[in-house]
């Protein structure tokens, strides 16, 4: 996984709450067997609407999505994270993420930055007033920043310590776990024999 320390890119204000993973990418786009090419399905139902934020040229090159609460609810499809990444997003900012989406983001290298609802509101206002303005997501200092001068927005975001460390180091989870293989073997020896198996 690619290391992530800090990223500055065009902020995209998505003024919606409860953006579920079916909205991020509908099921009909999940048929690929690769991890790439899912950008064609990103927000598919809304992409036909000229007023949708990503259809406005100022935001088209966006890489930091700013969304309302309960982002990524519903289906566990990691394709939702891939679709955002394939499009060019490096981070999503929201007051609340669904558990599975947040987990998938951490595994795939997309930063899911949880901030106070007021911060999202200020970022939305700022990004709509200055279309194409950038937002910085600094994982080292756990801060989001936008704007300059007295109205500048700077606030901390939440991300669990372990995920932050893995993202900063660009570490592969499977590799970390396999370094504890002796523990897994020891555990396996203690399992009751009546536990079910699929192959006899």
């Amino acid at each position, binding site marked *: 996984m690619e290391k992530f320390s800090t990223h500055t890119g065009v902020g995209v204000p998505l003024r*919606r*709450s*409860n953006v*579920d993973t*079916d*909205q991020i990418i*509908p*099921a*009909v786009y*999940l*048929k*690929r*067997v*690769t*991890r790439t090419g899912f950008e064609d399905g990103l927000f*598919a*139902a809304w992409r036909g609407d000229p007023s949708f934020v990503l259809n406005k040229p100022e935001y088209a090159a966006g890489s930091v999505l700013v969304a*309302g*609460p*309960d982002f990524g*609810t*519903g*289906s*566990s*499809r*990691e*394709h939702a*994270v891939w679709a955002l990444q394939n499009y060019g997003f490096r981070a999503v900012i929201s007051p*609340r993420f*669904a*558990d*599975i989406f947040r*987990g*998938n983001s951490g*595994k*795939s290298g997309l930063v899911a930055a949880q901030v106070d609802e007021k911060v999202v509101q200020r970022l939305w206002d700022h990004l709509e007033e200055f279309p194409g303005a950038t937002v910085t997501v600094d994982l080292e200092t756990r801060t989001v920043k936008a704007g300059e001068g007295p109205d500048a927005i700077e606030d901390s975001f939440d991300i*669990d*310590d*372990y995920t932050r460390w893995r993202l900063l180091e660009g570490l592969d*989870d*499977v590799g*970390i*776990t*396999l370094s*504890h*293989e002796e*523990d*897994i073997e020891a*555990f*396996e020896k203690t*399992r*009751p*024999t*009546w*536990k*079910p*198996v*699929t*192959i006899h």
Partner: protein
Amino acid sequence: MGKTLSEKVWDEHVVRSAEGEPDLLFIDLHLIHEVTSPQAFDGLRLAGRSVRRPDLTLATEDHNVPTVDWDKPIADPVSRTQVETLRKNTEEFGVRSHPLGDVEQGIVHIIGPQLGLTQPGMTIVCGDSHTSTHGAFGAIAFGIGTSEVEHVLATQTLMQARPKTMAVTVTGDLPDGVTAKDLVLTLITQTGTGGGQGYIVEYRGPAIEALSMEGRMTVCNMSIEWGAKAGLIAPDKTTFDYIEGRPEAPKGADWDAAVEHWKSLVTDDDARFDKEIVLDASTMTPFVTWGTNPGQGVQLGGTVPDPAQFEDADERVGAEKALEYMALEAGTPMREVKVDTVFVGSCTNGRIEDLRLAAEIIKGRTVDKDTRLLVVPGSVRVRMQAEDEGLDIIFKEAGAEWRGAGCSMCLGMNPDQLTPGERSASTSNRNFEGRQGKGGRTHLVSVPVAAATAVRGTLSSPADLPELVSTGATDGRA
């Protein structure tokens, strides 16, 4: 202090625990399907890794498979490639698989319990959010993403931060005609889609204990719809009776040892939950959704809400957008909402008990002339059982379509989709925009409401149907 049920099961599976790190949990059963596994197997191949425990892994094809002509090659080449990729992967890595055409094929959350592989006290994961279904047996079961699928394939473990605990206690008895589905839809409307976030939920109390295993699975299935990490129910005699004798259930002395352990899987009297919710089942009625998330629901006897009445600005805007998408006017009685398609099926309500209930209501009646009723059994075994009981004849004589097993219209990935503007009453779990097909409008309902709606053509409960003049006219078993 004692432990809650979920704490007991969690603690039994901790392989490694270290300060500042998530627990490393052992996974007893890993279910896989065609949509969320191909990239995981690719990951293994790239790193030169194998599947650590093929004997704790089971694959089937469900999300993407057709429910007609299942004996022919899949028509859509992209879908076919995905299904064939799973077949190649399971063969290469030595994983047991139940492909389309196999007698054990079906929705992954239907076949685990059906085979007896889902048992109390287990940890069960799958690249599908409705894995929470298996919690009905007193297992910790949750959905994972593809990176985690790869992690489990390679290590048979997962790194997981310990969730908080919540009790949902449901007192009283469900009134006649009110089902587990109504119970869970009522709950989600109270909590909202994020109310369970960060918690493993234990459903308990007399109304939960009175449910059949099928009903318990319906409740646990929808745990994810209010954001919970997992939902589970303490195993009891109902659970043991359901498991005993199934193909993969423990036998003989193993059975006795297993049951003895399973009986210890209850929340201790002096255990404490981080949060508790209490609901009264006796006040519940048939419940349906009006909006575009499962938390936007109302009693069937109610009306489409007025967004202006929501105090929370976010909820108000959400309601406005939902009504616009759903093409509904505030104040319209839910019973007047006309439905084009009724879908009976899915991992929420596609089990034999659900089909029996639907058939009982449909029997001797006909589907409304402007309405389509699609009945999709959750597994091949469910389909065969239904056909043995003549349920298929009842459905077909009423004018319904009787299909093969799979996820079907629940997520609209195979050809079973709504067309833009088409409205459904669906026994599935999600009413998201476009979930059942681009532009489709979904109302989540229970099985009795689905069946009655198919007959009347508007959202209805069986109580709205005229009495049959003579019963038993079409027994279906000739």
